[in-house]
């Protein structure tokens, strides 16, 4: 489903540019659950941003199915990202002023899903993620684990083909982290392709494959 060929990312510094990713060749099949590991500054988040199509400033090729993402203009790349990718962040990034239900509805709104359909999908998601009782609460009224649960629900509500998770358990205690990983496994079992970044060996083992990054290079585990 995903193929990176010779992807390089650099930021301009003096006297020479600083490389964040070097010659990344990577293939991810549909239905895989891939974990990216590596020390801080290794380029994990940079890789995730490229995979999530938030970043178009790189060299090399990025194929998403049959689509050459690297050749897409920014607007079309954003459209493809909107329809195909869901993201989960370490800091949850829920909107503070919106309730749980409204946070879930946001991606559907941006995809111009009709209002009646949105209500049904939000209802399904609340049910599926056991958030019905919390639908009218604001994020600050939830625990960290519950907030990340909402974030995951929000990331998958529009049925993306790819779920990207940047240290999704980084702010959670171990029990909450395990619950999120179980949720990811369940979603992966339902056919969703997942790429996660984590520092936790235990959580990495939840995936089907682990790749390692160091100083921007893919390295053997």
């Amino acid at each position: 489903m995903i193929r990176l060929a010779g992807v390089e990312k650099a930021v301009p510094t003096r006297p020479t540019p600083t490389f964040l990713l070097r010659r990344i060749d990577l293939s991810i099949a549909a239905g895989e659950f891939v974990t990216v590991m590596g020390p801080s500054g290794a380029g994990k988040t940079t890789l995730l941003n490229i995979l999530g199509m938030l970043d178009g400033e790189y060299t090399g090729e990025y194929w998403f199915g049959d689509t050459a993402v690297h050749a897409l203009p920014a607007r079309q790349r954003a459209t493809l990202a909107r329809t195909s990718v869901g993201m989960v962040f370490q800091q949850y990034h829920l909107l503070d002023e919106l309730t749980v239900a409204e946070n879930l509805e946001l991606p559907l709104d941006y995809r111009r899903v009709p209002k009646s359909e949105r209500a049904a999908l939000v209802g399904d998601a609340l049910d599926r993620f056991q958030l019905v009782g919390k639908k009218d609460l604001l994020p600050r009224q939830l625990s960290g684990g519950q907030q990340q649960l909402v974030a995951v629900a929000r990331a998958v509500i529009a049925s993306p083909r790819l779920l990207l998770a940047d240290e999704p358990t980084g702010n959670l205690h171990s029990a909450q982290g395990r619950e999120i990983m179980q949720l990811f496994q369940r979603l992966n079992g339902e056919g969703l392709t997942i790429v996660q970044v984590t520092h936790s060996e235990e959580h990495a083992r939840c995936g089907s494959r682990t790749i390692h990054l160091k100083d921007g290079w893919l390295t053997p585990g």
Partner: protein
Amino acid sequence: MSMPDLRYAVRSLVRTPGFTVVALATLALGIGANTAIFSVVRAVLLRDYPFQQPDRLLQIGHERVAQGRVFGGFSPQDVDDLRAGATQLSSVSSYFFMPGVSTRNLSGVGEPVNLSAAMVDGHFFGTLGVSAASGRTFGSSDDVPGANRVVVVSHAFWRTHLAADPRAIGSTVQLDGTPFILIGVMPRAFAFPNAEVQLFLPRSILTDNDVPHRRGVRWLNVVARLAPGATLQSAQAQVAPLLERLARDFPESNEGWGRPAIVPLTDYLSGAVRMPLLALLAAVGLVLLIACVNVAHLMLARGLARSREMAIRAALGASPGRLLRQLLLESAVLAFASAGLGLLLAWVGVPLLASTATDVLPRASEIRIDPVIATFSFLAGVAAFLVVGIVPAVRTARPAAGAALREGRGQSAGTHRLADGLVAAESGLAVLLLCGATLALASLWRLTHVDPGLRADNVITMRLLLKGGRYEDEVVAQRFRTDLLARLGEIPGVVATGASKRAPLTGGGEPYSFRIIRPAGVVDTIQPVAGFQIVMPGYFKALSIRLKSGREFTAADTTDPTPIIVSQALASQAWPGQDAVGQRFLLGADEGVVVGVATDVRHQGLASPAAPVGYVPMAIFQRSAFNVYVRTSGSPLGFIGRIRDVVHDLDPDMPISDLGPLTSQIAGTVAQPRLFTLLLGAFGLTALLLAAIGVYGVVAQGVSRRRREIGIRMALGARAASVVRMVVVHALRATAIGTALGLIGFLLVSKVVRARLYEVRATDPLILAGAALILLAAALLAAWLPARHAARVDPMSALRVE
């Protein structure tokens, strides 16, 4: 307050030069504009007139019901009767002054010049209670033939023409070729009846030849002083029956002149500009308020940026009171520095304003910066401090210390609501001002685009006075006028020449009436509302006033019968349904005949509808002062030199006044509404700009605050357009609420502006909607700029910062 605190406050402001410069400039502009307008209000409305007990002085005229409230003048006989019968008045005086008409030619002191002169009776200076600055004024003993070759001059005359020579008293001044003894110089502040008056001459020098001294010819203005214990009401109660009695006793001359119009002199002098000036003061006050709101918002934003600093200070042991004191001190330094800068701006701007207002406002020469104005500026600084200083200081001084230190942020929802509230407030104030300014502009546009009934383009005009010396001979004077028009007509490119006693659109038609003997023997007395204009042949062609029927005057017109031309309105009034040309009537004892009917002209001013008017030839009704019109085939400015040469060829000593395009002179008739409108427009624009800056500031700050939220939305798939829309809609919500409140506010006060508008309704929905749309458009633009920036937020970096 301690010196270190003050030093720290100054250093804190210097450390943020961007904030300090913008806040200083905004407040200084607001305070400067207020100081300047207050200096005008003080000079025109608040400063005591240089009369003894000015509140005891009255201006007395006639109220004519048929013609609205007009200060109809008095005849000398009526003045004498008033003086004899009105015991509620301790003193009654009369004077003759008509701008552009009552003038004298000064010779023997440099170039001959034509100067405004007031002919005042022997009671004039005593009634006003004024003395000469040097020498003396004149009394009743000077105002008699044989003793009346004396002159009192204005302070400006003494400075300009006599080099402020203290030995000038007793010297001789040549006026119209006749020597007058200079007996006094008036104080600098004395500017009555008008600032342009430079000469005060005894009324008795005007003989029957100058103005018929008949009861029916009302050419005198009356000023009186209330007797001790008398009031305006008691004077009115006594003068009204007195005038009624005169109307009964002298029906031929006084019928319809039986009602007095009595107002305090101070109201008469400044009443017409009181409301516009107070409206301007209110407008400029609104500008200052908007400026304060803007700066208050800047202070709030600055406070937010300093919440971490405040938290550290609090953590180090500073009490909330200590923090508040420090912040208030910074606000005070800012406000009073702005007041000083504002005073400086006013000091530079007030002389310009005063010179612009010279011919527009009474007492414009007294507009200046003085200690009272400086105090006003200081008080404006205090007001600015109260508005901009207190709330932001209180908010900044109570940080949630722990939160601010942990998160590096300290922005509460209340602060953002306050920012939205400030935007709504300044939008409301700005729309209030914009509505007033837009209505005034629409009114001025209509006023200046009204058809006056004549064409002023390509016409040069000038004013001449044929008085004294050889011009005492009417034949010589008439030959001069005829020769002048003929010679001017010979200039290549001149297509028509003409002349009249009064300049166009300045009123002043002579108040004659004529009688029509109807077939049944009924006698109808007709007095044209706009009086009679005295004109020379060529007048109608030179001013492009069309004749509907009949003919122009010619040099061959004689008194047997007296020819007159009537306006269409007068023709309809006097001979309804008939052809007026050829109709006969009685003008005094003489028979007259209508020789032509001219289209209507707004002789009483652009704002007054064209009233019935008659025209009589100057060859028969000779007048010493007259205005000349020279119509040219192209741009008239190039003819000015040749016109001057022709005049001086005929008389090298003839002073020429007001030589220039007629369009400028007509524009001068609406100089007052133009000045007020331009000032109001400038304040409206300033308010618009300040409101837009306010919206920009709030939105830019909001975008900065919502950077994380925008990043999340974009990461979740929000399009750039939807981010822009979200930001702009939020900003416009506050602006729209403010605009709606401002419109409601304007409708509540629209009564105030109604009387000042010409053919524009104060509630005109199109104009008010236009003003609101202008503000919303400005707010939209102001919000769009930072919103566009918001749409460029890089979600990666926005989320990473978090």
